[in-house]
């Protein structure tokens, strides 16, 4: 019965390997989410922690079911009543969408240039794109304060070459937030685009030219449509985290900058309203689930096509 036992053991091993990512998700994503989700149904109180638990762990399953029927959606309703939250969500989505578009606009030529570079240069170019990750994200965003502030490098340079007389106010405006997001998320656009464009068969462009197509038109009729999977992958990878971005609007943005990450933070730490901030987080997740599901669906379709 040795082979049978062996087969059993490998089957278990396989299951364990498959299970590891799920265990990871359960521990580091689902469990915290369950806690946040639970808090979002409770009420504020001045205590430590600053909320009244709806159900405790000690009540057991029957007790939970009981409470479930009288769950309070007050915190969620509150989000609908105060325009601040809706505006924050909309503003976040808009800033993320505009930033994604700008990242695409800047990232595409970079990825295209990399894919067209001599083969022996390409690994070095990819390294250069990844290089910023070796410095802490926070420090890089701080560095932008030094560049963008009134007496910062950018203004000094612009005044120095005589392009402007008065230093510009960039820091603490939405423009600084766009600059910060575009800068920080550029690699997430460039890398998938590069991976896609690098695979593109040069012969297809040559075939188009051979059939009388001008190079610029060949780009729009051949290269760009074939790079759409890369464009979509990059856009999702930039858009999804940009919606919930907190550090960049907090450090570079001003009072006018409305982003849901900032709202969440002030709700949590300034107002100490854990239940409402939990509701904000849960709703943000629900909003982001739509593009995430779309992204998943799209990735799957690509994989199927590849086979």
């Amino acid at each position, binding site marked *: 019965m040795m082979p049978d036992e062996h087969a059993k053991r490998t089957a278990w091993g396989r299951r364990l390997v498959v299970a590891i990512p799920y265990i990871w998700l359960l521990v580091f994503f689902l469990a915290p989410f369950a806690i946040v989700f639970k808090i979002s149904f409770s009420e504020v109180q001045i205590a430590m922690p600053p909320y009244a638990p709806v159900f405790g762990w000690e009540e057991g399953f029957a007790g939970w079911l009981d409470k479930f029927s009288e769950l309070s959606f007050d915190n969620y309703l509150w989000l609908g009543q105060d325009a601040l939250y809706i505006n924050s969500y909309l503003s976040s989505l808009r800033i993320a969408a505009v930033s994604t578009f700008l990242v695409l606009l800047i990232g595409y030529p970079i990825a295209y240039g990399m894919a067209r570079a001599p083969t022996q240069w390409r690994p070095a170019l990819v390294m250069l794109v990844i290089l910023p990750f070796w410095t802490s994200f926070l420090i890089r965003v701080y560095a932008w304060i030094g560049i963008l502030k009134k007496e910062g490098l950018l203004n000094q340079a612009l005044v120095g070459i005589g392009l402007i007389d008065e230093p510009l106010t960039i820091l603490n405006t939405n423009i600084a937030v766009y600059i910060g997001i575009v800068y920080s998320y550029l690699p997430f656009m460039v890398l998938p685009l590069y991976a896609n464009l690098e695979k593109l068969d040069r012969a297809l462009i040559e075939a*188009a030219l051979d059939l009388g197509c001008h190079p610029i038109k060949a780009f729009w009729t051949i290269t760009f449509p074939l790079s759409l999977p890369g464009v979509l992958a990059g856009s999702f990878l930039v858009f999804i985290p940009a919606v919930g971005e907190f550090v960049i609007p907090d450090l570079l943005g001003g009072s006018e900058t409305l982003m849901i990450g900032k709202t969440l933070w002030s709700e949590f730490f300034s107002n100490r309203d854990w239940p409402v901030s939990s509701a904000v987080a849960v709703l943000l997740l629900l909003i982001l689930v739509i593009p995430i599901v779309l992204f998943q669906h799209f990735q799957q379709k690509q994989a199927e096509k590849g086979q």
Partner: protein
Amino acid sequence: MAPTTLGPIQRKFAPWDDPSEVPLVRFENVTKRFGDFVAVDNLSIDIYPREFFALLGPSGCGKTTLLRMLAGFEQPTEGRILLDGQDVSKVPPYRRPVNMMFQSYALFPHMTVEANIAFGLKQDRVPKPEIEARVAEMLKLVRLEQFGKRKPHQLSGGQRQRVALARSLAKKPKLLLLDEPLAALDKKLREATQFELTDLQQELGLTFLIVTHDQEEAMTVADRIAVMDHGVMVQVATPAEIYEQPNSRYVADFIGDVNLIEGRVAAIDGARVEIAPSGIDARFEVAEAPDTAVDDTVWLALRPEKIAVSMEPPDDASVNCVSGEVWDIAYLGDLSIYHVRLASGITVKSAQTNVTRLIERPITWEDKVYLSWTRDAGVALIR
């Protein structure tokens, strides 16, 4: 093995022999270097309208590079390329009246078969109804009427090859370049397609320049063949000339099977050149040996099917006759190839057609046999 057809030679089409004919394509001392590497070396050819011209050579000898220069994707390092008498070096690929069928087919994967075929016509702003009519005509020509709405990845290799052909023919180019168009097909399909290509070329009255490393393919389809070796043009001639009068050992060996016997010119006497083979106790004669003088080293090239095998010595055994022992026999159905080992250790191959089924006393292993051939069977090569 001899090619089974002599191709279109019966057509009596020979513009290259007519000095008043104007070539469609002219390569004038074209050299192409990639860094230090010489891919095409001082090469000149004329290709005439309505000609089916084949570039033949082993992989890596510069055939694709030559085509790419004609299509405009590479610039010659030296020399000129004339198309219809015009220097095309300044003309970008998208303005050349030349279309190319790519070795990889290069079909646009995101477009249907119809859109692929229509692509070139669209670039010329041909009116829509005309495009549709032309696409339908092309689909019919390559017998893919049922497949117009499919994407390339939904087609078999042979079907893709036909789409690529239809796409490159749709604009009725003056000159169609075909880069190993049949290399990816299996043998049966390849042979059938070779005949389709020649039919198509004659029907449409176009000029085809085909690149291939398959000598049988070149023999089957081409009016003339250019044999290349490491970027150098070795010989340009009709398939029959290439086969019967190769100008070098390289060509003789590349096209078909050949026995090459080294020797020395012993005497030249009008239409009789005597050769003393080295290491063989015999006397050979050929009808001519151009550009040679007495004592020059030459190689006698003898096609196996031109050598007779017999158990008895021939009537005149004093010239063009050697004897040896049957070393091996390869039975190929229609032919038998006898490998005969001479006393000097050289092996000579002779191909005999198996016309009769019953031979009284068949030649077999270790038989002592005589090999003989006529004076005009062999060619003396100096290279």
